[in-house]
C-alpha cells in the first residue's frame, strides 16, 4: 500500500503546499512545540492541519505530530512528508521511511546517525540540539523541555515562519513566569540561529503569509461539543473518563465554570449546572436518563467500551421514550483496541444499541464546527423525539485542532423541548396518557415529575400500553412499538441534511461520513475522468435523498474507517440497494484515512489491471 506522491505538489510550487512530521517521546513537553508551529502557520492565513499521534501511555513512548500546510485547502492527513523532524532515536528507522523523495530529515547530531539509516534521495540536516541545550540550561528537566522549544526555532527558520510571532506566543503563555519565559525565548533563538547559520533556510517548501485567518478558528471537536452543550442549555453532565472522550466533559466543566456561575441572592454560590463523575458508564448514562426524565437537558460522553456498557440503558431510554444525548468519540476497536487511534467502527453498535428491536438516531459531524452545531441539534432531536441521540464523533475530530469557519450563534434560538408539557397545559388536558395521542411525527405528550397531580404515571422498560401501563397483550404492545418505529423514521426529516453533490455524467458516486470528508474530497480531485458525485451522510435514519443518490448511480463507493463496512451495512439494510451497487473502501489501521488511499482503492476497482 505504498502511497503515491501527490501530483498537485510539484517541488517548484511548494510554497504553502507541503507536509511535515515531528517525531518525539511523550511526556517530554513536545506538545507545546507542536502547538507553537501549528498556531503560527494558522495565523499566517494558510490552511493547516495538525494530527497528534500519541501512544496509550503517559510518558516515555514514541509520539508524532503531523502538520499539513495546504493553500488549496487539502488538509487531510497525508502519509508522506517533505520534512521529518526526527527527535526520537527509537523510531528513526521508521521515520526515515516516511520522508518523500527529495525531502528533508532533521535529526539531533549530538549523537552520530547510523550510516545504514541514510537514504540517498533525501537531505539529512543534523543539529546538535541536545548539546546546545546542555550548554545553555542547567537541570535535566529544563534541558529536555527547552530542546523542544529549540526545535521549534529550528523548524521556524527552515519554513520561514516569523520568529517574532513564535516569540509573541511564548510571551502570552509565560507572561507570569519571567524565568521560564526567558529560557523559552533563549531556546527558540538558539534553534532558530543554528538553522539560519547551518542550513539552507528557508527550504524550497515553506510558508508565506497570506493574511490574517479572518473568520476562521482553530479548535478541537471535543471543545466544540462542550460549547454546544453549554449553548444548548445542558445542565446535567455525567461521565466516566475514557480516551478520547475525556476532554468533552473536562471542557464542559471548564466552560460551565466560566459561563454558568451566577452567585445567588444571598451570596451563596450558584452553579447553574451539575456534573457528576460517575463510577462507570452504566451509571453515567443512568444519571443522564434520570435527569432527562426529570426534565433537564443532560448528556454523557464516552468511547467504544463505554458504548458497550451503555447498551441496556440505551434500550431503556428508547423504550420509555426518555431523551438522552450521548457523545461517542470513536476510537479503534474492538475491545480496548487502540485507545489513541481513530476508527469509525461503532455504527452498528450505536444504531441498534441494545437487545430487542431498537434503533437510535445518530449524527455524524465531519469537523469541530459540525460538532458544535450537531450537539445543539442532538439536544433538540432528543427532546423532540424523546429518544437517545448519539453524536458519532471520533478521535481525529475530537482531539486534534482543526481549522474551521468561526462558529456563529443565533440569539433567538430557543430549545425545542418537543411535547414536554408544562403544568398549565397538563391541567388543561382532559386526560394525560403518556404514550397516547401521537402527533403527525408519532411523538406523544410528556410530563416530568413534581409538577401536577394531573400527570401521575409510571414509565417502565417493560411492555406497556399507551397509558404506560404494563401489558402483555400483543395489540397493546404493538401499538407502542409500531409507533416507535414510525417515530424513528419521522426523525430523518429533522436531521442535518446530507451533503449531496450530484454531477452530470458522473461515472459513479462516492459516499462517506464524518472525518472522511476532507480526504475523500481530495481524492475525488485526483481521480482521472469525469468527476464522480459525492454524498456525505450526516445522520441516521437516512432521508430519502440517500436512496435516491444510490439509485441515480450505477454504483457507489462507500468510504469509511472500519473493517466491516458498517456504513455500507446500514445503507444495505435501510435503502435495500443490492451489494453490487455499494463497494466498500475501508481504512482501519487507526490513522486518519488519506486521500491517496481512497484514490488508489477506487482506481484499482475502476481500472483493474
Amino acid at each position: 500500500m505504498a502511497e503515491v506522491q501527490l501530483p498537485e505538489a510539484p517541488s517548484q510550487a511548494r510554497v504553502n503546499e507541503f507536509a511535515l512530521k515531528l517525531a518525539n517521546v511523550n511526556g517530554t513537553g513536545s506538545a507545546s512545540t507542536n502547538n507553537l508551529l501549528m498556531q503560527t502557520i494558522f495565523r499566517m492565513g494558510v490552511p493547516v492541519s495538525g494530527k497528534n499521534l500519541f501512544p496509550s501511555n503517559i510518558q516515555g513512548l514514541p509520539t508524532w505530530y503531523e502538520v499539513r500546510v495546504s493553500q488549496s485547502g487539502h488538509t487531510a492527513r497525508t502519509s508522506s512528508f517533505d520534512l521529518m523532524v526526527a527527535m526520537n532515536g527509537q523510531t528513526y528507522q521508521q521515520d526515515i521511511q516516511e520522508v518523500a523523495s527529495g525531502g528533508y530529515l532533521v535529526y539531533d547530531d549530538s549523537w552520530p546517525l547510523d550510516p545504514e539509516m541514510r537514504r540517498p534521495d533525501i537531505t539529512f540536516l543534523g543539529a546538535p540540539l541536545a548539546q546546545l541545550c546542555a550548554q545553555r540550561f542547567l537541570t535535566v528537566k529544563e534541558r529536555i523541555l527547552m530542546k523542544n522549544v529549540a526545535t521549534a526555532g529550528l523548524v521556524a527558520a527552515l519554513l520561514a515562519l516569523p520568529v517574532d510571532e513564535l516569540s509573541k506566543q511564548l510571551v502570552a503563555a509565560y507572561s507570569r513566569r519571567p524565568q521560564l519565559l526567558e529560557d523559552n525565548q533563549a531556546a527558540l533563538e538558539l534553534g532558530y540561529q543554528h538553522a539560519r547559520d547551518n542550513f539552507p533556510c528557508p527550504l524550497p517548501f515553506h510558508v508565506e503569509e497570506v493574511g490574517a485567518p479572518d473568520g476562521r478558528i482553530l479548535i478541537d471537536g471535543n471543545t466544540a461539543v462542550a460549547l454546544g452543550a453549554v449553548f444548548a442549555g445542558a445542565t446535567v453532565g455525567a461521565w466516566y473518563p475514557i480516551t478520547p472522550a475525556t476532554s468533552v466533559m473536562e471542557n464542559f466543566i471548564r466552560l460551565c465554570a466560566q459561563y454558568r456561575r451566577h452567585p445567588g441572592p444571598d451570596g451563596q454560590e450558584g452553579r447553574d449546572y451539575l456534573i457528576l463523575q460517575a463510577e462507570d458508564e452504566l451509571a453515567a448514562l443512568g444519571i443522564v436518563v434520570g435527569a432527562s426524565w426529570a426534565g433537564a437537558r443532560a448528556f454523557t460522553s464516552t468511547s467504544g467500551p463505554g458504548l458497550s456498557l451503555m447498551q441496556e440503558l440505551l434500550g431503556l431510554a428508547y423504550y420509555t421514550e426518555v431523551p438522552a444525548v450521548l457523545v461517542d468519540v470513536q476510537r479503534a476497536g474492538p475491545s480496548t483496541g487502540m485507545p489513541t487511534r481513530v476508527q469509525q467502527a461503532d455504527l452498528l453498535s450505536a444504531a441498534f444499541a441494545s437487545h430487542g428491536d431498537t434503533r437510535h438516531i445518530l449524527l455524524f459531524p465531519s469537523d469541530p464546527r459540525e460538532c458544535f452545531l450537531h450537539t445543539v441539534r442532538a439536544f433538540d432531536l432528543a427532546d423532540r423525539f424523546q429518544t437517545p441521540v448519539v453524536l458519532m464523533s471520533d478521535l481525529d475530530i475530537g482531539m486534534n485542532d482543526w481549522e474551521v469557519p468561526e462558529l456563529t450563534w443565533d440569539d433567538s434560538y430557543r430549545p425545542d423541548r418537543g411535547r414536554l408539557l408544562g403544568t398549565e397545559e397538563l391541567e388543561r388536558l382532559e386526560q394525560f396518557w403518556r404514550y397516547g395521542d401521537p402527533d403527525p411525527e408519532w411523538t406523544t405528550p410528556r410530563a416530568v415529575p413534581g409538577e401536577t397531580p394531573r400527570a401521575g404515571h409510571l414509565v417502565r422498560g417493560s411492555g406497556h400500553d399507551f397509558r404506560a401501563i404494563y401489558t402483555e397483550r400483543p395489540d397493546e404492545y404493538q401499538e407502542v412499538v409500531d409507533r416507535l418505529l414510525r417515530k424513528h423514521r419521522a426523525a430523518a426529516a429533522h436531521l442535518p441534511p446530507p451533503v449531496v453533490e450530484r454531477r452530470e455524467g458522473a461515472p459513479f458516486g462516492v459516499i462517506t461520513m464524518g472525518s472522511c470528508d476532507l480526504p475523500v474530497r481530495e481524492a475525488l480531485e485526483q481521480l482521472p475522468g469525469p468527476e464522480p458525485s459525492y454524498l456525505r451522510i450526516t445522520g441516521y435514519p437516512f432521508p430519502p435523498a440517500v436512496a435516491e443518490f444510490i439509485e441515480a448511480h450505477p454504483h457507489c463507493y462507500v468510504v469509511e474507517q472500519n473493517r466491516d463496512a458498517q456504513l455500507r451495512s446500514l445503507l444495505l439494510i435501510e435503502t435495500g440497494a443490492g451489494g453490487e451497487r455499494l463497494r466498500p473502501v475501508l481504512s482501519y489501521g487507526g490513522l486518519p484515512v488519506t486521500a491517496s488511499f481512497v484514490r488508489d482503492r477506487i482506481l484499482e476497482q475502476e481500472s483493474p489491471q
Partner: protein
Amino acid sequence: MTSIAKPQIPLLPLERNELGLTIRDYSGSMSTLCAGCGHDSVTAAIQEALWGLSIPPYQVAKLSGIGCSSKTPQYFDSAAVGFNSVHGRMAAVASGAAAANRGLVVVGVSGDGDSLSIGLGNLAHAVRRNVRMLYVIANNGVYGLTKGQFSASADIGSRSRKGEPNLLPPVDPMLLGLSLGATFLARGFSGDKAQLVPILRAGLSHGGFALVDVMSPCVQFNDHEGSTKSFRYVREHELQDIDADIIPVRGQIHSEQTPGAVTEVELHDGSRVLFRAVPEGYDPRDRGRVGSYLVESARRGEIATGLLYLDETTPDMHQLGGTPEERLWDLPFERLCPGSAELAKFQARLR
C-alpha cells in the same frame, strides 16, 4: 395487568393531614404481588410516611429497578410520576432525577438482588454522592421475581425451597453503607409498621442519602423453616433495641413511644429524630462503634433494627455541587446560554 384499580371499599371517615389529604390520596393501583408478600406492607408504610409528612403526592418522584419489590411504585401514590427502570440501575437513575430537580421528594424502592447483587456498585456510589433521597431495600434474601434463587443478602446456612443451603456470607447493606460513608442507615421489618413508618419518615426528612433496609419476607420462596428472612425468624430474632422516631416540622408523630434513653438529633430540614438506644449510650453518630455493634449483633444471629447511623453534617450532592436553590431543569434559558457575543469573545482565543 398491574393497573387493576383498587376496590373502593367504603371506610370510616379517614384522618386528614396538613394538606387535607387522606391516606387514600397516596394510594396506587392494586398490588399484583403474592398474597401476604412483605413488600405490600413496605408499600403501605411508605404511603403512610408520605401522608404523615404531608408531602404533596405529585412532588414525589418514585423510582425502582426490577424485581417484585421494584414493582411496588405502581402500588402507591398514583399522582406521582414514576420510573420503573432496569435491574440494578435505580440508584443511578434516581441520582440523575435528583440532580435535575432538587425540589423532588425522591423515593426509590429496590430489592436485595437489585441493590446488593447487580446494583451494588451503583448503590455504593450513590451513597458516596449523598444524593438526597429515600432508598428502600425490600430485603427478602431471595430473587422473588425469578423464583427463589439466593440473593447476596441470604444468610449463610439459610435454605432455599429446594433445600440447598446458602454458603456465601451475606452483604449487610448497613455495614456496607457504613464502610462507604453513608449518612443515614436504618433498618426495619415489614411486619412492624409502628417502627417502620417513623424510620421512613426520618429517611424522607434526611438531607442526604437515607438507606433503609427493610426485612420483607417472601411468602413464596423464603418464608419456610431454615430461612433467616422468614416472618417467623425475623419476629423471633429481631433486636428492637434501637428505635427511631421523628417529629417533623411538617407533621405529627404517629407511632407509639418506647420508654428509654433518648438522643435527640436535629435533621437537615429542621425536623428532629428521637433516638432510643436500648444499649445504654448507643450513639448513632459514632461510626466506629456502630460498626462493631452491627458485627456483634449479626454474630449473635440477631438483626439490629432502628435508626442505626446518622450523620447530619455531610453536605448532599447539590451542596457539594454548589448548585442554586432553583431546579436545574427549568432554569431560564437566558441564564444558561452565554449568547453570540460571548461566543465571539471565546473564539478570539482560538485565532
